[in-house]
């Protein structure tokens, strides 16, 4: 039996979540809520979703024992949930398929998305191409520069990529711009949000679509080692890959859930993207209440992370809740620590991880050293690092 039952009918996780939008968006969200409630347990919808996850994405993604890396680290055994092997290279596609199938049922011919690293944009463009939907992706002008390969991939897939020049020109501004598009084109447009943020029902819906990760992992761990891991570790930008693997474990006792935020240049420098770890105040942004990086006037401050996908000043409201009820723990990893883990995984396992996922790997390394050899850590390897090779090359002063 599922004991944990969140959110409430208006999307509240305790004081977090909710629906904080202008009146012009309220009806659109209500329409979405009603449709999602109708389909979330509909056998036909779920069968279609499962079919696509299997035949288009290539699920289930394997769980892999990183044996050489484990030996090198010298501590707990480290297992990887291989979301990097999904079609399009990250967990993001699980959610975009779910939402695009819903868009189709709602008769919306046009989908829009915001993207940071470009993974969610690529995943949205991919499913839009497959379903024959028009696709527009908003991306901060800064991110367009640092994630050029993904911009090109989206264009190849037939999407229109619109660089967003307002504010800090990153993910949060792309989200603002997508919301503005949505409010203007409500009648024909479905907004596919890429993480467990935004107004209700998005945090719940994205979590549900991503929870395939944790559902599979639970079964795979049983098959491989006959028990559940002692700790599950995932990186947290908005928090979708982490919610996806955490959610099915929330009611499982003795499994620690650990979310890893981006400490950027270090929490003490203020240049980070770690609202939970840095104890940022509670606030309202992008339709929900959560912990938010902000100044004393309540304006959102610029974040920093080497990984565009973690560069977000807020965090999904369910993570804020899990932190407060102490069911999950949150830590932060610096750019440098993530880079070290990135290289370690490349060299010892033959896997190039995404820079986002490298934050989770770096923390797993730290933890493993303090744990016994018969203990098990499961890391959500949320994506592959092909998209990041330009960034990594630049750090070593190499031009590709």
């Amino acid at each position, binding site marked *: 039996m599922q004991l944990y039952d969140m959110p409430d009918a*208006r999307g509240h996780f305790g004081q977090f979540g909710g629906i*904080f939008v202008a*009146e012009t968006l309220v*009806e659109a969200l209500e329409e979405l809520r009603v449709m999602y409630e109708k389909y979330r347990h509909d056998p036909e919808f779920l069968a279609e979703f499962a079919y696509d996850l299997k035949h288009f994405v290539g699920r289930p993604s394997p769980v892999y024992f990183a044996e050489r890396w484990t030996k090198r680290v010298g501590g707990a055994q480290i297992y990887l949930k291989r979301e990097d092997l999904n079609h399009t290279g990250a967990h993001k596609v699980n959610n975009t398929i779910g939402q695009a199938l819903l868009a189709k049922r709602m008769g919306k011919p046009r989908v829009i998305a915001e993207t940071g690293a470009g993974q969610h944009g690529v995943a949205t463009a991919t499913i839009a191409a497959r379903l024959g939907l028009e696709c527009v992706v908003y991306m901060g002008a800064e991110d367009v520069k640092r994630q050029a390969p993904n911009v090109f991939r989206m264009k190849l897939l037939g999407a229109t990529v619109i660089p967003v020049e307002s504010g800090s020109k990153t993910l949060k501004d792309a989200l603002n711009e997508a919301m*503005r598009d949505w409010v203007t084109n409500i009648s024909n447009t479905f907004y596919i949000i890429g993480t467990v943020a935004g107004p209700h029902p998005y945090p719940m819906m994205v979590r549900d679509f991503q929870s395939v990760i944790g559902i599979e992992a639970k079964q795979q761990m049983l098959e491989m080692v006959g028990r559940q891991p002692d700790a599950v570790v995932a990186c947290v930008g908005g928090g979708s890959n982490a919610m996806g693997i955490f959610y099915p474990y929330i009611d499982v006792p003795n499994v620690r859930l650990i979310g890893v935020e981006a400490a950027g240049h270090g929490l003490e420098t203020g240049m980070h993207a770690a609202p939970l770890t840095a104890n940022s105040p*509670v606030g*309202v942004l992008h339709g929900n209440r959560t912990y938010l990086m902000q100044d004393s006037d309540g304006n959102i401050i610029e974040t920093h992370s080497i990984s565009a996908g973690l560069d977000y000043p807020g965090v999904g409201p369910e993570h804020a809740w899990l932190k407060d009820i102490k069911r999950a723990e949150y830590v932060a990893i610096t750019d440098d620590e993530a880079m070290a883990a990135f290289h370690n995984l490349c060299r010892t396992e033959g896997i190039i991880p995404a820079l986002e996922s490298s934050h989770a790997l770096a923390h797993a390394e730290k933890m493993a050293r303090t744990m016994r050899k018969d203990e098990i850590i499961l890391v959500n390897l949320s994506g592959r690092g092909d998209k990041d090779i330009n960034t990594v090359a630049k750090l070593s002063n190499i031009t590709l």
Partner: protein
Amino acid sequence: MSRIQTVFSALKANNKKALIPYITAGDPHPKHTVNLMHTLASSGADMIELGIPFSDPMADGPVIQRASERALVHKVGLRKVLDMVQEFRQKDTKTPIILMGYANPIEAMGMEKFTQAAKAAGVDGVLTVDYPPEECKDFIAALQVSGMDSIFLLSPTSDAARVDLIVNQASGFLYYVSLKGVTGAANLDIEEVKARVAAIRTKTDLPIGVGFGVKDAATARKVAAIADAVVVGSRVVVAIEQSSEDNLLSNISQLMAELRTAIDA
């Protein structure tokens, strides 16, 4: 009677409609804001909507976004906005001031602290764009206790049940958003606005203002024939953006005079 009510009653007695311009506090520079407010009041504004700058103005189009960015360059936060209202009130005790902004700056200050400080400064009403009535019951109550009005938006997509819900929480006046979109968008459909405003009237005695798509004097005139108040935002902000220090106040008073004439015609 509140200042907002007083103004609407006086206008009604004279068979006139309210003109409510919007400016963002601190735009183009904080030193101009109080002068701009006095100019608005002396050149035809019945009330003033004063925007609280915010880093992420999700419901605003590019014009008002830029106004926020210009103000934030000078670090104009909510405290400074309230100081400006207080300064304005030293010379003008009649023109109602409605603060318009987003929830986060208000929550960052703290609801209680904000309502006390806003009341003390001379604010008359507050419109918090991303606070639907379901999410801000405490805030509505706090405003009511301190004698300020809660202004709410109604949109072309609000169904009958929502209109009922909102008119029961609102005070001062209702703000009908005349189009599906952000502030400053172009596609106002006057016939639709007319029908919607008529439908809202059957449910409330509160005055109804219309805004978001009023781009010129001709539109202002058509809207004035339907509604009790015409809210003009992006058009005013564009005029501010296109002015120099020297002609800022004269340009704004000229624009206000045009709008006033159109509305009174």
